[in-house]
């Protein structure tokens, strides 16, 4: 693919995917957001403020770390970790919330809402809301509230109201439903900060653009460290924001392979997983057309993953497009394999990854040995594992 990549079109389509599929009340705020986004995207003052926030508040650039021991141990490609775990609040999510919060401020919105799965996006949203003095409400599935209680506490400390969503499967998709219901009720003063590259246009493109700094930095850092482009990129995919952030600046570099890693949960064959690209079908949910986990009647199926952040039945529409065009390859990793990735990185490099990122680590353990020693993989270490300590300790039968 050497031709210029310029997705999406102006109505937010990535081929047959994306678009705007929302109830009528949300059309005006989406049009308003789209106009503001395009205005400020090219506004030097806005860009300067965003860049300063990313540098001094988030702590960018994040390092591209050469995992020398782990590379040697796996005996194949040289592995570089993009250290998004070192960002303020502990994951890549803040890249996007800083950007959207600046937009909200310029649009005169006084109230911020967000959905969250693992709580990383909720924390990143509560953080920027606290800093800007904006009211903040975070919707989180009741199941996730229970398994990510540390992040719930962090959000509350930051002054956010956390609403446990009791409808449906009580996970991320239901949190998104509830956030949409809030937005439809409070459209005039409320800005909805979506945390992933899903939702109605312009969210998939906008969140990608805010996250693309991951890939831009990686490209430059890889050049500096090795004098060339990487051969492969690996990132976990739930909604897909950290993956698209890494992939996007490399899309036109056809020598760079891209691997998106979905959560296979108990295994694809069991049906208990969260891998719509690997085992789903196209459909419409949460404002866009994309691959979904749905049954023959079009009802959304409950998903499963050890990581709350990947426990989502849809995926960003751009990933659907990259899959269909063959530009990116989507693979899957089970809960058990993800845990192996978690322990490997922890013990081999002294870095405890988030369970979401552990899926990317686990796939890297499969991929690296198939590549030669002079090849390079960049893996997105999208978040740190602190939030998962309770889950892990519980699995090991330890009371904290």
């Amino acid at each position: 693919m050497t031709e210029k990549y310029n997705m999406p079109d102006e109505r937010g389509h990535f081929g047959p995917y994306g678009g705007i599929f929302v109830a009528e009340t949300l059309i005006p705020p989406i049009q308003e957001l789209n106009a503001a986004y395009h205005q400020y995207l090219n506004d030097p003052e806005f860009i300067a403020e965003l860049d300063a926030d990313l540098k001094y508040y988030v702590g960018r650039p994040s390092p591209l770390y050469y995992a020398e021991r782990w590379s040697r141990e796996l005996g194949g490609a040289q592995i570089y970790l993009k250290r998004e775990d070192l960002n303020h609040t502990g994951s890549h999510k803040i890249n996007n919330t800083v950007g959207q919060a600046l937009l909200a401020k310029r649009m005169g919105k006084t109230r911020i809402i967000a959905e969250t799965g693992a709580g990383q996006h909720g924390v990143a949203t509560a953080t920027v809301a606290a800093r800007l003095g904006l009211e903040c409400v975070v919707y989180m599935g009741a199941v996730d509230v229970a398994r990510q209680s540390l992040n719930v506490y962090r959000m509350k400390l930051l002054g956010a109201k956390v609403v446990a969503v009791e409808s449906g499967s009580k996970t991320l998709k239901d949190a998104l439903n509830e956030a949409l219901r809030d937005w439809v009720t409070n459209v005039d003063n409320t800005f909805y900060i979506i945390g992933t590259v899903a939702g109605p246009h312009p969210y998939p493109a906008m969140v990608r653009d805010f996250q693309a700094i991951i890939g831009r930095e990686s490209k430059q850092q890889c050049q500096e460290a090795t004098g060339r482009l990487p051969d492969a990129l690996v990132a976990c995919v739930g909604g897909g924001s950290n993956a698209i952030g890494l992939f996007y600046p490399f899309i036109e570099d056809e020598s760079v392979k891209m691997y998106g890693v979905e959560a296979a949960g108990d295994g694809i064959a069991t049906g208990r997983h969260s891998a719509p690209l690997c085992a789903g079908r196209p459909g419409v949910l949460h404002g866009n057309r994309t691959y979904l986990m749905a049954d023959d009647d079009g009802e959304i199926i409950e998903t499963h993953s050890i990581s709350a952040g990947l426990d989502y039945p849809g995926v960003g529409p751009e990933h659907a497009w990259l899959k269909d065009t063959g530009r990116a390859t989507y693979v899957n990793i089970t809960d058990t394999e993800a845990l192996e990735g978690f322990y490997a990185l922890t013990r081999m490099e002294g870095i405890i990854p988030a369970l979401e990122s552990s899926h990317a680590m686990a796939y890297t353990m499969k991929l690296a040995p198939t590549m030669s020693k002079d090849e390079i993989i960049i893996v997105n270490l999208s978040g740190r594992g602190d939030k998962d300590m309770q889950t892990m300790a519980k699995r090991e039968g330890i009371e904290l």
Partner: protein
Amino acid sequence: MSRLAAKFEELAKTGRKALIPFITAGDPRPDFTVPMMHAMVNAGVDVIELGVPFSDPMADGPVIQRASERALAHKMSLRRTLEIATEFRKTDQETPVVLMGYLNPIEAMGYEDFANAAQRAGIDGVLTVDLPPEEGLECSTLLKARDIDPIFLLAPNSSDERVKKMDAAGSGYIYYVSLKGVTGAGHLNTTDVETKLQQIRANTRLPVAIGFGVKDAQTAKTVANIGDGVVIGSALISKIEANLDDPEQAKNEIIELLTSIRQALDSYRA
């Protein structure tokens, strides 16, 4: 002329307002719906909106969400909703039936298969909450070719341009969502509705039914008088929810409420 167009024409001639109940197909159980539909017709309703249960009803409040969950627990689906409509049509060829739901079940069936199945089931209109006209052209063209009206929503924040768009894309009637919020919310302001309806009327000649937040005969009468009809959903489903162990009682209470609304609406006749 479609059954819906004929119905609204007849209502306009006689100076009556349309009473449009909404119930979710298969709630609280599949065998409840067809007898309920016939009973509502006997109570004087003009059009029936039949909700297609969906796992993720993003525009609905808690009452209709739970109705969907109850129906889905009985394996209700778009296909089975169409079976219910077919059953109803066996003994009622007059009352227009409008399907109301979300896009994904229709996507899963395929637009053309759905349009054919809806036609066979005697469906008169299809209102897809998350399918705005920009994305809905393919589906609405297939529906219109089968004399099924694609019905679109308008909201309090819809611009003149949007109203014109719905006028061009839709037929049958326009469903005006009387408040910013989800179904069954409780803050409907009739003065606002009145102001908005003037803007809508200036840009479309389609009949306008008003819904969301209509709970009782008094509100129904007021909003129906502003528009051409009134949609009442959550208030009916609340009766089902309050009588889950006694569906017959739920049916009686729904009929009682609809009868009182019918009387209130007709008391406005000139």
